[in-house]
């Protein structure tokens, strides 16, 4: 990390690099892509400075495979990409889910589908980050909305991934990734850094996928003398393929249980002017900044508007959203997609509040004016 206490002008992508290094990431494999290239660029300069490894891979499939392999040797690993690359990573993200290999995947959202709008912001990968890989799997997705938060969310992504042995997706949009803001990097000793639990039994006694109270088995590193089998097939507690219904059921349930039990620790959101709000704007990423501005401007007109901003996009913050729906008369959900997060809100809205969506897919950020215009529907 750079000099502490000295404010720096950093890009969101640069703050992600600093956050990754502070979290202990020492392996990065990736393939450059706008608008995430600065992360690979930064890692290629900084990884050698901390005795880490940077590999420019042949593509994003290889990148994802490489970080899983590196993590299996006990090294915290990350890759970074945007929509097209994120699509290629999906199969191996599933592999990381089923083998419970901690890793962090950064996806900076740009306009899609396909090559789409490489230099424009979008939020079209909200559902892909949840359901992009096949099979019934839990996943954690975080979405920062400022340069400073890029730093802390990256650390949190690593911490959650190590704690729950799950791939964590850090996603935000082009605006936040390329935006520069002031940030003061905190001293390393002030940060909480979590390491995966390693086995403390002799190698002969190690049962690699044995359940325990938290549902997260200790993980040995390749080369430590603990031999075990890693496979993308559903496996028994020893890591060997199984299709015995009782073993399969217990395994899939454990994958979900470990995340469900951690929800209070995993889920994080910001409440902005929400105390007395009668209308809530629910938004994330760069759009949340427009939402905050809109809420301030609306309050100048006497309209009690607040903002709820999920930082944890997945697992969906059902409890928090339900509470809001019960306490406001309307909710506006602005998104740079055709309505992805809003579907989840609608799913849990049992007629509590009116839900209004605001969607923009022209490659431009939703402005405070866009939101203020929408507010007229409820005022």
């Amino acid at each position, binding site marked *: 990390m750079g000099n502490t206490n000295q404010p720096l*002008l950093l890009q969101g992508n640069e703050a992600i690099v600093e956050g990754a290094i502070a979290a202990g990431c020492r392996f990065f494999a990736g393939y450059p892509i706008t608008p995430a290239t600065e992360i690979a660029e930064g890692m290629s300069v900084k990884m050698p400075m901390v005795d880490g490894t940077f590999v420019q891979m042949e593509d994003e499939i290889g990148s994802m495979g490489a970080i899983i392999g590196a993590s299996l040797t006990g090294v915290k690993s990350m890759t970074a990409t945007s929509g097209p690359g994120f699509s290629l990573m999906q199969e191996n993200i599933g592999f990381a889910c089923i083998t419970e290999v901690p890793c962090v995947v950064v996806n900076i959202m740009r306009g899609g589908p396909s090559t789409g709008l490489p230099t424009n912001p979008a939020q079209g990968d909200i559902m892909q980050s949840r359901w992009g890989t096949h099979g019934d799997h839990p996943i954690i997705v975080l979405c920062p909305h400022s340069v400073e938060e890029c730093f802390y969310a990256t650390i949190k992504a690593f911490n959650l991934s190590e704690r729950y042995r799950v791939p964590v997706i850090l996603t935000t949009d082009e605006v936040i990734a390329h*935006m520069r803001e002031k940030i003061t990097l905190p001293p390393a000793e002030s940060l909480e850094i979590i390491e995966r639990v390693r086995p403390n039994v002799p190698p002969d006694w190690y049962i690699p996928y044995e359940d325990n109270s938290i549902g997260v088995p200790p993980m040995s590193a390749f080369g430590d003398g603990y031999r075990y089998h890693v496979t993308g097939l559903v496996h028994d507690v020893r890591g060997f393929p199984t299709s015995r219904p009782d073993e399969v059921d217990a395994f899939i349930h454990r994958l979900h249980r470990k995340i469900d039990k951690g929800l209070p620790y995993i889920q994080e959101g910001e409440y902005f002017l929400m105390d007395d709000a009668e209308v809530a704007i629910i938004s994330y990423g760069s759009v949340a900044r*427009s939402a905050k501005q809109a809420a301030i401007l609306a309050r100048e007109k006497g309209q009690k508007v607040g903002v709820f901003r999920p930082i944890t996009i997945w697992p969906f913050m059902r409890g928090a959203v339900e509470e809001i729906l019960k306490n406001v008369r309307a909710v506006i959900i602005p998104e740079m997609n055709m309505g992805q997060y809003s579907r989840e809100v609608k799913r849990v809205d049992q007629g509590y509040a009116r839900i209004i969506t605001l969607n923009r897919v022209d490659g431009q*950020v939703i*402005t405070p004016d866009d939101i203020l215009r929408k507010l007229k529907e409820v005022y």
Partner: protein
Amino acid sequence: MRYEVRLSGSGGQGLILIGIILAEAAGIYDGKNVVQTQSYGPEARGGASKSEVIISDETIYYPKANRLDLLLCMNQKSCDEYYLDLKKDGLLIVDSSLVHQVPTNQAYQIPFTRLAKEELGKAFVANIIAIGAIAEISKIVKVSSLTEAVLKRVPPWSADLNKKALSIGIEEGKKAAERVKRLSV
């Protein structure tokens, strides 16, 4: 006070770099709140490019510039496209070697690119001349802060060249300001 700046032109003119420099000067050296964003096409050169800087004493939420206090146009197209985003009393600064039709007689017209070529022999410092003029005309940033920020972001071998470019910008900014003042009386 929220002050919104848009630096516009085409890709390759160094608009994003001077956006970063302005943000660093106002944010790091002058201690204000700043946000710098950029928007450009997929081309390496050519194509529309713009960089925006918000400078404020308060927290900056919305990071983009919508109602401009200052607009720099380094080509005709950007001038035509963005002039209407300028506030009523906003400042329009154009590279008069590339912008031949200005929408108002209140425009600060300085031939940045021609000055860079003729005075310094390097067209690529036109952006640094422009940022010098911006500092002089708008007073939004201290010249000492700007000089430090420029020297931090350019390669060491070009320090002298860039310092000269800055002072040409400041000088030309003064002259342009006098011209506009005469016109408005």
